[in-house]
């Protein structure tokens, strides 16, 4: 699939595949109707060039979608270990396996407080009046691009979290999206709605059961933060290195609402995430953190947009990328400030640390500003590990490798500092150490904090 797909058949998701998929579904008619519209949109968008600004640096030619198929029925349940799953107490948990919800807990207790938590399709059917106005309407439109339309036609499973007005969830919710079958195409959806004055935290992660199998994720994340509400959302992408990950993700923040959004990219062969932050209400704020650590021949691509639509909005984006081996990271960031969005404060920054000569990082920030009373700052740096830092560490008895690891962790530490969720910081620290090859190193972060008490 190049920018223009001249042969839609090559995508492998023909009308026959779609009809076969529909035949296996048991769902409300209105959902099916929406799928048909989305599929028509998908076919139309296949013949239209992908946005060069967003995709021109990402080579999708090796991608062969026909290698992947949605599973016609739920696969046998298998347990896939989660990075964050066992390390803190959760108020609810959901597991998706190959596009089907395979485990759910906590939803009964949550429902006593009016919280809806569970399988998206079931929830859409049982609470259509409440949820239909949100699903693929407020945050991500089915015709946003080829991948959004593809997702809207084939989505299955998915997480719905609705937190009603004024309810504060003290414990985080955990969502795990897994692939267990080779060749699976999985289209899970995450829809979170935090109503006025409510507060919630959802930690989501992806994982492959086996290192050798290949999976495809075409996902969508919609985060709706209503007036005075607060949401913390983390997505930790940790597929195996044969998997493909495409996702259209958007957060909408209304008056005085705040969104803290952390994306972590560790796994996959190729991934592209389109991330929109729409500050739709006055004084809405968003903090966006990105952490990526690539190795081998991985390619991770991000397109981020901070859209300031109203007065007094504030956004702050910091991505930190560490690249090893022959890996590649692309970050294209944009701050857009609409005419009404005076007194806006927008910030974006991407810093990359290269651990090899053959890794490559493209960081391209950008601004589009229509208002005249704003403060927008952006920056991007790409550098190698500083030899003076290494020597300084070594002159204190620290080995060259250990110094390198320390410097990498320190580089990420500055993003961890922005994430006020201990389990996320600890997981990241542990995972980074593992990827650096220090399996047994004791976690300095954890021991340090524990001992401080």
């Amino acid at each position, binding site marked *: 699939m190049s920018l223009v797909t001249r042969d839609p058949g090559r995508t492998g998701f023909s009308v026959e595949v779609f009809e076969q998929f529909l035949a296996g579904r048991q769902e409300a008619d209105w959902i099916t109707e929406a799928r048909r519209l989305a599929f028509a949109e998908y076919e139309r968008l296949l013949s239209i060039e992908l946005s060069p600004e967003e995709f021109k640096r990402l080579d999708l030619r090796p991608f062969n979608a026909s290698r992947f198929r949605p599973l016609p029925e739920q696969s046998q349940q298998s347990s896939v270990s989660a990075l964050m799953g066992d390390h803190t107490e959760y108020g609810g948990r959901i597991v998706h396996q190959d596009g089907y919800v395979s485990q759910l807990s906590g939803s009964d207790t949550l429902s006593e407080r009016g919280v809806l938590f569970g399988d998206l399709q079931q929830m859409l059917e049982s609470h259509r009046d409440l949820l239909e106005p949100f699903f693929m309407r407020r945050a991500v439109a089915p015709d946003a691009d080829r991948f959004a339309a593809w997702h809207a036609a084939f989505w299955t499973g998915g997480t719905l979290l609705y937190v009603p007005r004024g309810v504060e969830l003290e414990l985080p919710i955990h969502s795990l999206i897994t692939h267990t079958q080779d060749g699976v195409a999985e289209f899970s959806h995450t829809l979170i709605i935090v109503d006025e004055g409510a507060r919630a935290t959802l930690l989501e992660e992806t994982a492959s059961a086996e290192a050798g199998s290949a999976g495809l994720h075409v996902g969508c994340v919609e985060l709706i933060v209503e007036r005075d509400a607060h949401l913390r959302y983390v997505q930790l992408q940790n597929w195996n290195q044969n998997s493909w990950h495409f996702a259209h993700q958007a957060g909408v923040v209304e008056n005085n609402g705040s969104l803290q959004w952390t994306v972590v990219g560790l796994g996959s062969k190729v991934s592209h995430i389109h991330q929109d932050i729409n500050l739709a209400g006055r004084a809405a704020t968003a903090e966006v953190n990105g952490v990526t650590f690539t190795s081998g021949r991985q390619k991770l691509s991000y397109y981020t947009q901070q859209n300031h639509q109203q007065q007094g909005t504030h956004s702050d984006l910091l991505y930190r990328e560490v690249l090893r081996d022959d890996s590649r990271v692309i970050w294209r960031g944009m701050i857009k400030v609409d005419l009404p969005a005076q007194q806006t404060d927008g910030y974006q920054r991407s810093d990359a640390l290269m651990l090899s000569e053959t890794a490559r990082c493209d960081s391209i920030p950008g601004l589009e500003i229509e208002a005249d009373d704003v403060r927008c700052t952006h920056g991007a740096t790409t550098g190698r590990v500083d030899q003076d*830092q290494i*020597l300084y560490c070594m002159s204190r008895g620290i080995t060259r490798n250990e110094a390198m690891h*320390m410097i990498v962790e320190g580089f990420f530490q*500055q993003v961890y500092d922005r994430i006020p969720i201990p389990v996320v910081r600890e997981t990241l620290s542990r995972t980074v150490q593992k990827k650096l090859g220090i399996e047994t190193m004791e976690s300095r972060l954890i021991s340090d904090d524990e001992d401080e008490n």
Partner: protein
Amino acid sequence: MSSVLKVSDLHVSVGETPILKGVNLEIGQGEIHALMGPNGSGKSTLAYALAGHPNYSVTGGTIEVDGVNITEMEADERARLGMFLAFQYPVVIPGVKVADFLRHAVTNVRNPDRKEGEGLIGMREFRKELRSRMTELGMDHEFARRYLNDGFSGGEKKRMEILQLAMLQPRFAILDETDSGLDSDAVRVVSEGLARLSGPQMGVLIITHHERLLEFNTPQFTHVMLGGRIVETGDAALANELHSNGYAEVRKRHPQAAAEEAAAEEALA
């Protein structure tokens, strides 16, 4: 047994440029040596070469600790043998807390055979030790949680070097202009700190332009470097003389080294 750091006929180049042209120096444990000399005479080059900086290549001669040749050793191996350099320009390591950094360093120096990933010294005892050293140096304990040298003032950085010296307790400490760029209060703190730390277990080489550091740490030996060689060695009185009169007399006494110094300066200009 008292340890000895012995530098014999040391030649060091930076890139293609020879800087040190045969330095001889012997420092015993418990001794304080001052190294003085005009800018560009090679003092910092000697300091980096002793620490094992890869950009300073030894083209001749040896560095030995108790007869063990360390000339080819990596900087971390030297540190584990008891060498320490207080940097003239301490390096910032963002995101790495002082306490974490020092816990790794202290563990490695005290257990020289440790492999990466093996356990660190106990947090509780380490923290206690760190706090008491910080108190002695008049440092806020909050520094332990700050990122190493990140946002530190000049004086704070130098004090951090002395804190590291205190924690690592090296056999041989080289202080490269630890007093430069400091106001007189800060110089006093650093000087007193060093005076408290140095003792019969530590050999010290102080590279300085100032009297203050030497006031608190009286050198038994003063060496003068000129044109990449140590041209004179005396006692504390020599340091005082140089402070009062500068290097004009030294240049007169060693015309050949002075000529080489001038030639090197010209080549740089």
